[in-house]
């Protein structure tokens, strides 16, 4: 990939330093701005087989998630993500947030973060979210300043966690090629992260061992890291969050030099001008422009192929999820059997952590495997392997102890309802 750091030269603009309001930026760039406004759209009919912009409950759709995440906020409230402009509203209305939630949670939701970080330094993270939200600028959702320099309009890595992560890997966040940035501006947020409790809840990316699920699992194991203690098994568990970048980073497309923006921000014609679409959504809705640049076989052929991949991934994903639920419920039930060999149960618990990790790496990723089919399917085979190993252990141990048990999988009706939202973003 070549370095095409060509500044915009035909347009004049004057955006003050620290300006965050998209309306101000939008005055100079009407096409980008009006496509940006489309992120507000929630058209139910417009959804694809596996993608959607409707804020619908993942818990109700896949009820076993309640048991997989029991004791953790995700089991109570976890919805399909939607357009960037909803970021702050969705953050403030999720039931995963409470009075103790640290500022860290604001990190990927507003262009105010780099400013707050400059003011507070590393104290930004541990400061309560509620505190930060008193600043009206924190209510501005993801916007131009999250990705662009106001003076040059060039792409810029502004988010502190990615700047930290790149430096740890020996890369200078200010010396990236334009093509690299067309992926890395997204990797500011669409990545797995954890709160480094020893460093003031600093948002950190676990990348130093590599990008395979096994590498990151190892990273956390070395750290003896736990996201939460499981309410049914007592096992210290891991939660994966939106590992889009980690999944994509060694895919066929990445290797071929394709960037997130190539598919999600297709070059679009408006009259005589061309601009990058700023409506971040499923590329299947814009397959002609998103894929047609490189694939000349027509958007129907593209969609067919994506469906072939996604159907295969979805099949193993939902299977793996249900097996993990079965394992967790079985451990819970078997633990109560008198005389059961604790060593076996403990082994099964560790396996439940592993099974859930390898499942969630695909479940939390938002392309139903398309971003890297081989990585997704490999991870799911591992998940199934671990979950079934755990089940064998538990069942065998229970039998030796002479105790039988039954389990009751969660149902859609059990799901905690999502909070209604009436607010609209002011953009």
């Amino acid at each position: 990939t070549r370095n095409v750091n060509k500044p915009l030269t035909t347009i004049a603009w004057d955006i003050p330093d620290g300006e965050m309001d998209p309306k101000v930026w939008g005055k100079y760039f009407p096409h980008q701005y009006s496509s940006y406004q489309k992120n507000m759209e929630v058209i139910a009919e417009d959804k694809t087989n596996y993608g959607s912009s409707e804020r619908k409950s993942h818990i109700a759709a896949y009820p076993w998630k309640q048991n997989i995440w029991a004791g953790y906020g995700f089991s109570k409230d976890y919805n399909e993500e939607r357009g960037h402009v909803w970021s702050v509203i969705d953050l403030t209305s999720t039931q995963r947030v409470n009075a103790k939630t640290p500022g860290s949670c604001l990190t990927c939701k507003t262009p105010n973060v780099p400013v707050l970080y400059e003011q507070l330094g590393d104290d930004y993270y541990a400061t309560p979210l509620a505190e930060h939200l008193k600043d009206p600028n924190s209510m501005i959702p993801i916007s131009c300043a999250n990705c662009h320099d106001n003076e040059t309009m060039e792409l810029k890595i502004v988010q502190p966690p990615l700047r930290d992560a790149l430096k740890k890997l020996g890369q200078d966040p200010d010396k990236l090629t334009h093509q690299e940035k067309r992926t890395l501006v997204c990797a500011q947020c669409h990545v797995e992260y954890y709160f480094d409790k020893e460093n003031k809840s600093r948002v950190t990316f676990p990348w130093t061992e590599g990008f395979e699920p096994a590498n990151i699992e190892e990273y956390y194991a070395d750290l003896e890291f736990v996201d939460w203690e499981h309410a049914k098994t007592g096992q210290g568990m891991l939660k994966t969050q939106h590992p889009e970048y980690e999944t994509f980073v060694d895919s066929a497309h990445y290797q071929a030099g394709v960037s997130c923006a190539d598919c999600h921000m297709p070059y679009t014609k408006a009259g005589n001008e061309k601009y990058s679409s700023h409506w971040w959504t499923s590329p299947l809705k814009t397959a002609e422009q998103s894929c047609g640049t490189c694939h000349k076989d027509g958007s129907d052929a593209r969609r067919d192929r994506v469906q072939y991949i996604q159907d295969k991934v979805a099949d193993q994903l939902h299977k793996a999820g249900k097996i993990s639920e079965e394992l967790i419920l079985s451990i819970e039930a078997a633990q109560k059997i008198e005389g059961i060999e604790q060593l076996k149960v403990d082994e099964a618990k560790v396996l439940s952590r592993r099974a859930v990790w390898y499942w969630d790496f695909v479940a939390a990723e938002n392309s139903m495997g398309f971003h890297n089919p081989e990585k997704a399917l490999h991870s799911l085979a591992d998940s199934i392997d671990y979950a079934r190993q755990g089940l064998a252990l538990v069942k065998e141990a229970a039998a030796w102890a002479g105790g039988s048990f039954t389990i009751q999988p969660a149902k859609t009706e059990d799901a905690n309802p999502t909070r209604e939202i009436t607010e609209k973003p002011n953009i």
Partner: protein
Amino acid sequence: MLKQLIRAPSSLIMKHKGLVVLIGIGLAVIMIIVGSLGVNAYTKEAEFCASCHVMDTVYREWQHSAHREFTNCNDCHTDQKNYVAKTWSKATSGTGHLYHNTFGDPNVMLELKNTETVQENCLRCHANLVESNFLMDDDCFRCHRTTPHGM
């Protein structure tokens, strides 16, 4: 009316000169349209071009190229700006080929004459790949000697 036409052609034609010219032009237009529709359809596939022996090598190379799924000979070798241009370029070069094939030595080394047409066609499909660099102004096949054929 028909009888009259047969019996006294010259006088009648002279009498309705304007009308006849109009009918004539009308018929000619219809024939050109129908004819070129037919010819265009008949000559659309690569197999038509390959019906000449001299086209064997280029045909087989095209058939082994990345282009075979999406292009046939005409996509590159005839003017695709519009229907009229396409038909005209087919008719003129086709007559040439027929002449050379029938009266000339069909084993002469072929060489490309209509480079402009080909260049325009490359851009028709690939413009978005090269529009941000200097290659736009260069003949693509200066470098891509074997795309989709050529030794």
